[in-house]
């Protein structure tokens, strides 16, 4: 293959061809197996080059499931395989069964009507009342017993006595009809059970699919959250951590993913303090008494909405002239920037606040809470560190 062909193949693969060129190239591949083979080599080698050039990133099982659920939610699936007896569910089975029964009744009726002994009760031999059933092979039809062929392939009735008892014949017919009815009823029951089983399986399948799709949608809606733990200065110096997973056990739904609180108690409610999008008391830990334990906090940052959530525990009491200033240092910056103050009602207590960064901001790599004067707050962290993370 020439360099020109290779260049064309590259442009075709990368979608750089004009539509008419693309069509012409595709036609050439269709009619020229050698060109198609050369194109395949180009395609496979460029794909291999691309895959070799990227860093493989492991995808968690959760992400795989969510991804697959999202895909399955978008495509049109053919109906799931249903376990059923096809002959039972065939539309012609019940009419055929009914026709068979009618035919059987008709033949029995005709046999009964055409019986000479029945037609002529005074004929010789009609002296008794014994009726037996005999299989066709027992004796040839129209044998010397005086009866003609019945014309039925099933059991034929043979009168061995001088008079055929119509009551006995009806009884036999009814017995057969009842047997057929029972059999049909049994089939109906089995069919109903199969349908019920199928419906149950369908319901289970749909339920699982809905759960997976909901999970995928939820995850996509939340976006990616970067989480960190904040501890007091002493713990920070010692390297003591409570462990984010334990701290956020109620919030974290999957490793690395957190569901943002919702409802009236969620971060985001109105706050009087500047810089915060909102702040609310946590439902627990708000005793109003000075905390005995060291302060700590955990923080998550929604990279999609550029919003950070801070859950603060055991904050120290703060004098009225001071405030707890929150700072963040984005990953692409060397400087802390102020994002707001902890609302005064959380001083000496626990609380939850949220802050927002301008769109396009980089995820904070560090979060810091310092004690600063309420008036004339510094541009950079200056006071004692209350909490620091990660």
């Amino acid at each position, binding site marked *: 293959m020439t*360099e*020109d062909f*290779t*260049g064309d*193949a*590259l442009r075709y*693969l*990368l*979608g*750089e061809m004009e539509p008419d060129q693309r069509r012409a190239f595709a036609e050439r*591949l269709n009619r020229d*197996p050698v060109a*198609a*083979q050369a*194109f*395949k*080599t*180009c*395609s*496979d*080698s*460029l*794909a*291999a*080059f*691309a*895959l*070799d*050039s*990227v*860093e*493989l*990133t*492991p*995808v968690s099982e959760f*992400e*795989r499931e969510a*991804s*697959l659920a*999202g*895909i*399955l939610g*978008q*495509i*049109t*699936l*053919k109906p799931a395989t249903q376990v059923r007896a096809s002959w039972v569910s065939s539309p012609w089975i019940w009419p055929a069964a009914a026709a068979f029964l009618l035919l059987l009744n008709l033949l029995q009726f005709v046999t009964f009507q055409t019986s000479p002994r029945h037609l002529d009760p005074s004929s010789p031999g009609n002296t008794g009342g014994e009726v037996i059933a005999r299989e066709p092979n027992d004796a040839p039809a129209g044998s010397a017993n005086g009866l003609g062929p019945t014309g039925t392939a099933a059991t034929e009735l043979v009168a061995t006595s001088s008079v055929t008892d119509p009551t006995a014949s009806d009884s036999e017919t009814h017995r057969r009809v009842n047997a057929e009815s029972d059999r049909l009823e049994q089939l109906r029951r089995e069919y109903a059970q199969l349908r019920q089983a199928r419906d149950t399986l369908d319901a289970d399948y749909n339920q699982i699919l809905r759960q997976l799709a909901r999970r995928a949608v939820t995850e*996509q809606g939340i*976006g*990616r959250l970067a989480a960190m733990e904040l501890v007091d200065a002493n713990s920070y110096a010692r390297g003591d951590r409570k462990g984010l997973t334990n701290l956020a056990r109620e919030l974290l739904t999957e490793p690395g993913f957190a569901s943002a609180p919702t409802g009236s108690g969620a971060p985001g409610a109105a706050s009087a303090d500047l810089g915060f999008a909102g702040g609310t008391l946590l439902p627990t830990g708000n005793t109003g008494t000075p905390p005995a334990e060291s302060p700590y906090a955990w923080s998550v940052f929604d*990279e*999609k909405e550029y919003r950070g959530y801070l859950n603060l525990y055991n904050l120290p009491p703060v004098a009225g002239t001071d405030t707890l200033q929150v700072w963040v240092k984005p990953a692409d910056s060397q400087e802390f920037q102020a994002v707001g103050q902890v609302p005064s009602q959380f001083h000496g207590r626990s609380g939850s606040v949220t802050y927002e960064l301008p769109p396009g901001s980089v995820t904070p790599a560090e979060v810091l809470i310092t004690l600063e004067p309420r008036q004339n707050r510094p541009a950079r962290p200056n006071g004692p560190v209350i909490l620091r993370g990660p």
Partner: protein
Amino acid sequence: MADRDSGALTELHQAHVSLLHGLVRRILADHEEVREVVQDTFVKAWNQANVYRPERGEVHAWLVFIARNLAIDRLRRRSRRAAAMAEFAKDTDDSEPAPQESTERRDLFEQTMTGLRPAQRQALELAFFRGCSQAEIAAEMNTPVGNVKNHLRRGLLKLRQIIQRHD
């Protein structure tokens, strides 16, 4: 999959989702976008399964180009070319095979990389991962368009030779 068998789709997804994640991540930085493009790739593969021709490429190559073209479309739509160029310059310095890659794959990677001249590799990467036209590649590499064409053609030829030797 052309028979609309979702089981086949599941198997295909299981086998290729990691590769495609890595590939699309190289093109699009945003995690959400990467995930969306990978999903769209499988949906498109499902919808176009009846036109896939094995004689024109392996399944993984087919998926690679679907994913790449979807990602490049996004890149172009959102006019992130300038930012992507800056990232590219950074990426090319530290793009190394992942430690979990198999020896066979790593060997092939090394053969590929040693077989390609740096300019060929750069031109191919700009075309593949950034969707740059030949003129844009020329501007980025500060070289005439004719040279870019040569880099691309000869780079792909070299790749073919390496792959054929490997096969």
